[in-house]
């Protein structure tokens, strides 16, 4: 089965994708399609999340207890599953944000050794 390339990409994206999902849900409950659109819109179309990665990630986060899901209806009156951030999810978000900043800082230092402080 042709799983392997997908899996690898998922692996690479995993940490970031989780962060993006959690951040997106900070503005309120949203369904999968909406989350995908929001990430795309907020990144000015630079980031396009594959549904094949998005949905498994949503379920993984729900299983971890960071999200909670319930059925609802979209603005256009379409039945959809809405995800919402839980309290532990919020804590996780701030942890991930910190880690991301550190990562960016560290990588920045490595790529540009003479620059000081933030860009």
């Amino acid at each position, binding site marked *: 089965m042709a799983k392997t390339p997908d899996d690898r990409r998922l692996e690479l994206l995993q940490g970031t994708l989780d962060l993006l999902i959690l951040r997106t849900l900070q503005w309120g409950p949203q369904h*999968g399609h909406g989350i995908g659109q929001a990430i795309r819109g907020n990144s000015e179309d630079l980031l396009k999340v594959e*549904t*094949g990665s998005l949905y*498994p990630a949503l379920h*993984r986060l729900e*299983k971890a207890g960071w999200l909670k899901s319930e059925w609802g209806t979209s603005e*256009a009156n*379409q039945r*959809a599953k809405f995800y919402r951030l839980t309290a532990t999810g919020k804590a996780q978000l701030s942890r991930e944000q910190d880690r991301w900043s550190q990562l960016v800082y560290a990588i920045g230092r490595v790529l540009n050794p003479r620059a000081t402080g933030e860009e």
Partner: protein
Amino acid sequence: MRPNQHDLDEEIRGHLAISVQERIARGEDAESARLAALKEFGNVLLTRDSMRRVWHARWLDAAAALGRDMRVGLRSLSRAKGLAITVVVTLALGIGANAAIFSVVRGVLLRPLVNRGEDRLVYIRQSAPGVGAANSTFSVPEIVDLRAAVSSIDAFGEFSTIDFTLIGFGEPRAVKAGVVDGSYFEVMGLRPVLGRLLAPSDDGPNAAGAVVLTYRFWTTALDSDPTVVGRAIGLGARTATVVGVLEPSVPYPADTEIIANIVTSPHHLGATMVTMRTHRMTELFGRLRPGASIEEARAELRAAHAAMMSSHPDAYPEKAETQLSVTPLRDQITAPARPVLLLLLVAAALVFVIACSNVANLILARSVRREGELAVRAALGATHGELRRTLLAESLVLCGFGALLGVILARPMVSVVAQFAARFSVRALEVTVDGTLLWVGAGLAMAAAVLLAFVPRLPSAHAPTGLALASGSVRMTPGTSRRLRVFATAQIAFSFVLLAGAATLLATLIAVQTAPTGYDMRRVLAVDLPMPTLGLGSPDEMNFYQQVTERIGSLPGVDGVALGNVVPWRDSEGSFGGTVSFAVEGQTPTDGEAPPRARLRVVTPGFFDVLGVPIVAGRDFTEDDRRRSEPVVIVSRRLAQQLFPDGDALNRTMWWTDPYFGKPVPRRIVGVAADVDDVNLVRDVAMTVYHPLQQMWVTGRLFVRASGDPYALVPPITRIIRDLSATQAVERAATLEDVRLEVLAPERLNAFVLAGFAGVALLIAVVGVAGVLAFGVSARTREFGVRLAVGSTPRELLLGILSEGTRIVAVGIAAGAVAAYAFAAVAGAFVASVQLPGVLPVIAAALILAGAAVAASLMPAARASRVDVLQALRSE
């Protein structure tokens, strides 16, 4: 909450719908919006699978698939009922036998004793191999010497056995009692469940009689009566108080019903017991001092024993080779059972191997039939793992049922095997069916299932023959056929080992059972009338026996009455099993030569007539051979021939030289009786000396010769004795024939257990051979069709299959014979009682096996000869 398949589908459908709505809102037409949304989404199934995988681990899926496969297996097996039932029963027998044996092995050999600190408990034994005494026990002076000389043992406990007539619990009855000193229970580390046990304050001639009941006696004879403590009971002429009930524990060295303090036994207080060094009847136990090793204790005790022997040379004749052994109590208790149980374990393992190879055969044959199905599945993309899983599911179903049935079968088997093992170790009496049984059963079933799943070869998806087989026809490859034959041959070989063993055992048993004994077996009734005291010969007592004889003799249907002191075979274990040294007139043993020894028996006039033993010379005892008249004896023919080779033993004299008898009394030989053996079941010729009761005063066994049914005499006999004495026990009435059967019961159980194993093995092997041949026939239907078409007769086909079966059997038996002799030789090296089987039983076993197997191959052979030519040729 864990989403189900439907939730996942709904979620994806919602996504697509929203996506389509948005596109339409942007102005796309419905059809292209739908396509674009689908395109953007990508692989729907794959995404759904990934979502599912978040919640369901891979092994859970595999387990679910295995469950599905098992359901499929169950259905497909229900179509092959014959095969399924054969496999389940075969496995059940194999698993049941192993689980049962293992329970007993665990209970007897591995479990610790209940005694506190059992690792410091030792058993001390004196033996005299030179005179055939494996356990000569100790006398009181010997114990005093040993106690004084040893420091590595904290405390000693003394135990001896005596028969009491117990009065106070219903009818008077003879009980086997242990007589112990006050430190015995402390040394053994035993506790009471009720009341107290015996303590040092119960020692000495002035203590009150005190009795402890064993747990078994309390629960079985007294219904666990909680008020029993404090009850006064009579022990023969003395009285005692029940002070407590002992916790359940291994009764060793003797399985007694009560345990009393020394004061209850007049004999234990007598001068003979206390002062005579050769009056040995006490077993000795010790508790190691903390920190002392058993080697230390052994060395110390042996040194003390050697010193004792050199200072009393008269009590330890050189020829006796008296020696001392010290063993941990647990080893002592389990030692005799170990080789027997291990042999049984081997037998059970053989049955399991036979069962597994038979089942493997059946499964192999079945999987060959399924090769077509498997090939199709392989071609459609099933992996090897998935195919194995299918096979495993099926074998799990089979083995699961097999194990279930096996565990059910194991329960009754445990009790049979435990009874069997009880002969070698009293611990077997407390073996119960427990949880281990289930674990062993389940473990064996799993092992079998996994093995069976890996027996068949999987079809390769690439091999072109794979699909050709999918047409549903069966063709046997040479490899498969060879494997089938190897399994069948192995079964025959292993079954032969078991069958030959069982046949040998049965042959021995039959020989013992049918051997002439020299007694009139059917018409003589033996009854125990235990004497209240031992050998005092009070006029009252003699009068009692005199009256018993007279009044029973006048009953209708009684041809004769006599008294003796030994019921043949039944009493051979007791104090009269041994022999006593004596001398005869005209023979002075040369220095260093051992004095002759004979059995001592006490009888009343008429004894020989009643038991049907002819007097070959001289006369029987008469009423005139009494207390104050001339001492006389009758000797056995063997004694007469051996000590008076010139031919005339009559009117010569003999006297006992054992110090127990004090000053030698010469006794005149007045008769010679035919040889009988009342000790060994396999008749041996031994020297025996008979005394008249009036001159030796030891009796307690009544013999009645009946003209009709002997058992019809039991009620009137009991009534007469009750009339004469309300406290006299009357017990164990049985004809000599039944006594012998009863004594032989362990041997019969022995043969029964092994014959059971052999029967199971035979059954399995026969099923195996028939199965292999039947499969061969059905796989070769086309070949037979062709052969019939070109002119073979059905008879030729039938003979061909039969000869194939015979070949398997012949090779199997040859291999089995080699294995059996090798096994017997190896076992013989470790266990003295294993002998190489005789030729006759082995041949009988071979014939039985060959006959059964050939008969089993008749059915498939007949089928081969009935093949319908047209149908066979059209079948492919």
